[in-house]
Structures are given as structure tokens and as C-alpha cells.
């Protein structure tokens, strides 16, 4: 699942065709320039040699040999006197042509070795990345399991107060495991392309209320104000995806701000940008400048992200919004605070029959 983004450079199958075109272009150019230059045919023979050397460092073996063939034919036909006809070559001229092929072979061999080394390095890098991700996923899954195991062992022995404390630890661990598994599933659904948004008319108030309900006690330490104007239109969206997107933002606000920092949900529409938005804002510490660029990338986490987590939340929010034809933006003014804005295209529903 996590490896999909690691692309290998120098994909050989796709590059081959382009290599032949490149060779044809270079040799053609040399021939054209040679035709209009005052250089002798021998000097031009060496310029073809230089072209073959240059090409063989950039393309693989067969295109390089193809370059050597092209060069020798072009040189013989256009430049070896008499011009514009194939001539029988003298020994030194033949020797020059032979070097084209030798150079093409040696050069392309060296190039292949370099490509292989590059690819090995890239593979090693992606493997390392894979390992890091695997480590953090394993960590996120194992931590709650460790809590369960300890709690089960201690349940029989502790006094009532200790038992209550254990139960609370188990409750937190369950919450954490639930979040990690749900996020991994969401991310996988997004990446595997099985996610098919079902757009239907939704009431923004319903979406916010459902998200609030889903977040439950985790937002208890933060006073929440919801400010949706009476004329906020019904919007065309996938209700389940919107509910989860808003819930992620509420949870983010709760996790990344100190207790008692108020969280505000507001909504509105703009005729100019032809969009509707629902935003979640807080007055917390804000988002550090260096993090903003990759805020919505998967596995990116804040420097002081307090509890665990895989850094999938915002990547899922963006994925869900894009799937619905919308987007997510962030504002974080220098004075602190953060505001995440979910936007969707503004669509007007047809009229409703009265009764």
C-alpha cells in the first residue's frame, strides 16, 4: 500500500523508443551542420565520433549501435568524396568507422552499469522508506496491544482504584487502535481506487452534527461553536466522506491545541469562486511554516505531535475532498491559530414542490 509512490527512474521499456529518436536527432543535426561547414571530410568524421561517444553515455546499447550505423552511413554518403554517393573506403577511413562501433559498445556498457547502480541506490532508498513506515505502523499497532496485555495480567491483582486506572488505559488504547486501523483502511481505499463517492444533497448542519457525534468524548475538553448561516445552501457531497473529513479536522484541532482552546466550525458560500465551504478553526499554536508544504502528504507529522499517530489524517481529508471534486486548504496566520477549509463546487438544486 505505501510503496505505490516510489517510482523507479530509467524504466527501460518506455525509454527505448525515446532513445532511438534522440540518436536520430543528434546524428541528423551533426549531418546538417557538417553540410554547411567548411570542414574537411576527415574532421567531420571525428565530429561524428564525438557524437557517438556523447550518445553512448546517455542511451543503452542498441540505440548506441544504431547511432554508430547511422553515423557511418551518413559520413560515407554525404561527406567522403565524391559527396552524395557511397564510396569505397580507404583503410584509415574504415578504421575510423570501426571506432564508432567500438566506442558505442564500450560507452553503452559503462552507461548500463551506471544505470544499474542508480537503480540499486533508489531501491535501497525506497526499501529504507518502506522499513521506516513499517516500523511506525508496527509501533502504532503494538502499543495498544502491549497495553491490553499488561492490563489483562494486572486486572486480577489490583485494588479497585488501580483497576479503574487500568480500565481507563484500555479505553485510550482501544480508541487509538480504532483510529489507526480506520485510517489505514481509509488510506488503502483511497489508493486502491475502490472509493466511489456517491454525491447527494446534504445539509451542512447534518454533516457537522454527525461528525461531532463521531468524535464523541475526544472533543470534550474543547468548547465547540458551530456557526452556519441560515441561508447556507444544501450542498452536493458524499455525506459519509464529508462526515469523516470534518471529524478528522475536529480531532486534529483537539489533539494539536491545549485543553480548553475553543474550536469553531463555520460555513458559507461564495458566488465569485462558485464554491461552498465548511471550515474548522482553532486558536492554538498554529502550524509551523516548514510543515505547511507537506501538511497534506501522507505520513507527515508535526514536530510536536503529542500522541502517536501515523500522519494519515490530513492526507485522508484531502483524498476524500478531491474525490468529491473539492479541496482542502489551510490558513495559519503569524499570530497563531489554524483554519482548515473544506471547499466544494457550488451547485443549485432544482426547486422543491410545495405542499
Amino acid at each position, binding site marked *: 500500500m505505501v510503496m505505490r509512490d516510489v517510482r523507479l527512474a530509467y524504466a527501460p521499456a518506455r525509454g527505448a523508443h525515446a532513445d532511438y529518436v534522440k540518436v536520430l536527432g543528434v546524428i541528423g543535426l551533426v549531418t546538417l551542420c557538417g553540410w554547411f561547414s567548411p570542414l574537411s571530410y576527415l574532421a567531420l568524421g571525428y565530429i561524428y565520433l564525438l557524437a557517438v561517444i556523447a550518445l553512448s553515455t546517455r542511451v543503452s546499447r542498441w540505440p548506441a549501435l544504431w547511432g554508430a550505423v547511422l553515423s557511418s552511413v551518413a559520413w560515407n554518403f554525404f561527406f567522403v568524396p565524391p559527396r552524395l554517393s557511397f564510396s569505397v573506403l580507404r583503410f584509415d577511413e574504415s578504421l575510423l568507422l570501426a571506432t564508432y562501433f567500438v566506442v558505442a559498445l564500450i560507452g553503452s556498457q559503462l552507461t548500463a552499469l551506471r544505470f544499474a547502480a542508480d537503480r540499486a541506490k533508489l531501491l535501497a532508498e525506497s526499501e529504507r522508506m518502506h522499513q521506516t513506515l513499517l516500523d511506525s505502523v508496527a509501533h502504532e499497532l503494538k502499543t495498544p496491544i502491549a497495553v491490553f496485555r499488561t492490563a489483562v495480567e494486572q486486572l486480577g491483582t489490583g485494588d479497585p482504584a488501580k483497576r479503574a486506572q487500568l480500565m481507563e488505559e484500555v479505553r485510550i488504547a482501544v480508541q487509538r487502535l480504532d483510529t489507526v486501523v480506520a485510517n489505514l483502511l481509509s488510506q488503502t481505499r483511497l489508493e486502491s481506487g475502490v472509493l466511489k463517492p456517491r454525491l447527494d444533497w446534504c445539509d451542512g448542519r447534518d*454533516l457537522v452534527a454527525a461528525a461531532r457525534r463521531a468524535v464523541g468524548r475526544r472533543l470534550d475538553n474543547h468548547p465547540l461553536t458551530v456557526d452556519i448561516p441560515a441561508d447556507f445552501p444544501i450542498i452536493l457531497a458524499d455525506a459519509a466522506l464529508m462526515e469523516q473529513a470534518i471529524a478528522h479536522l475536529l480531532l486534529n484541532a483537539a489533539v494539536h491545541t491545549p485543553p480548553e482552546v475553543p474550536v469553531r466550525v463555520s460555513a458559507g458560500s461564495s458566488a465569485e469562486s462558485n464554491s461552498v465551504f465548511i471550515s474548522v478553526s482553532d486558536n492554538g499554536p498554529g502550524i509551523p511554516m516548514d510543515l505547511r508544504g507537506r501538511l497534506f502528504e501522507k505520513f507527515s507529522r508535526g514536530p510536536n505531535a503529542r500522541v502517536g499517530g501515523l500522519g494519515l489524517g490530513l492526507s485522508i481529508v484531502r483524498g476524500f475532498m478531491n474525490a468529491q471534486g473539492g479541496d482542502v486548504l489551510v490558513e495559519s496566520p503569524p499570530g497563531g491559530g489554524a483554519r482548515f477549509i473544506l471547499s466544494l463546487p457550488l451547485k443549485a438544486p432544482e426547486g422543491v414542490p*410545495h405542499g
Partner: protein
Amino acid sequence: MSTEGEPTVLLVDDEAQIRRMLRFTLEEAGYGVREAESGRIALGEIALTVPDLVILDLGLPDTSGTEVLRALRKLSSIPVLILSVRGGEQDKIEALETGADDYLTKPFGGGELVARVRALLRRVHTAEAAEKVFTFGPIQVDLDRSRVLREGRPVKLTSLEFKLLRMLVLHRDKVLTHQHILGELWGPKATSKTNYLRIYMMQLRRKLGEEVDSAGHFQTESGVGYRFVSDPMMGC
């Protein structure tokens, strides 16, 4: 259907550990529990003695939960609570349209489960009593005289708004799918016109007042439907 003693719940789930945990929770709450590990066994159990309620997992190995539901509905109208996974909105809608009364999304808490079971069983009894006046918060709904009072003063509702409210109240603590409500109110051709429903829900909430809305009586089930909750604090 057993009329005396503890109500019986039939648990249909293929995971033995889930069955054990649900049995523990339900017995603790005072219900009798029977188990079935597949759809076929479940139907046999129901044919033997009809339980008071069925908890049915949609992801059974032998037959699909919806098929079990369809066969069950030919035998009995007892309440059915569906267990489903997140992202399975279409399955939930299908199950509700086939005759399920409510659903829970896995993973859920035991408190939540017991609250839903209790609400479904209570609904069976109050439906028999068929009360004429229903009260929630400051609102009084007089079903016979098609009248709504808010703190004793009449609220002007259009006939469709009243029909919507009446439907939700009559089916309280049960999920009504968008399609179902639309079909009842606007006819079978309008079952996909969710925008009608949204507009009318908005108007209805506005007329009933802020406190009704914030108390959470009208709960939305994202992508599925609405549920009127008679006691929003229960199970939280």
C-alpha cells in the same frame, strides 16, 4: 414471541469471540441470548422459536445478511438490528430497505448496543399502545388532530412538514432511509430527490426551534437516512 420473562435475542455472527462478548454484554443487561454462526442455522433457529429480536451481522460466510433478512421477514416482523462495517452505506441501505430496523457500525461499544436493543424492544411495545400525543422537549405532537404545540403555543406546519414529523415520531429510534421517506411523502418517482427532504428537514427544524435541534432528537445517519431519537442522552 415470548411474552413473559426476559426477552430473547438471537445473535447471528460467524466470529465466535464476538458472539461470546455480545452474549456477555446482553446477559449482563438482562436479556436471554441464543446464538447462530451462519445464516442457515439462524433461519432454523427462528423457525424453531421466534426470538424477540435478532442481531444480524451482514458479512456472513454462507449467505449474505440481506438474504437471511429477506427469508426472516417472510416468517416474522420482529425487530432486526444489523451489524455492518464503515464504508458499507449501500449495504446498510439495502438491509434497511429489506426490513432491518436499525444498524450499528463495527466496532461499537457494548453500551451503544444495549441502548439500541432496548430502544427497538421498547418500540415494539409502544407501537402496540398507539399513543395519540407524543411529547419531546418543549414539543407536543398530537397525531390525531394533526397539531403541533411548542411550549403550549401552536406551530404552523405545512401538511408535508407534518407528515414528515409524524413519520419520524411514529418510527422513533429506527433509521428511516432517505428513499423510504421520499417515497412516502412525494411518491415512488421522487425516491432519489434527496434535496426535497433536506429542505423540508431544515424548515421543520427551524420551526420546532433551536433547543430541539441542539438536543439531537433528529439524528442524521450520513448517506443513509434519519433517525428520530426519543431520548438523545441514552447510550452516550
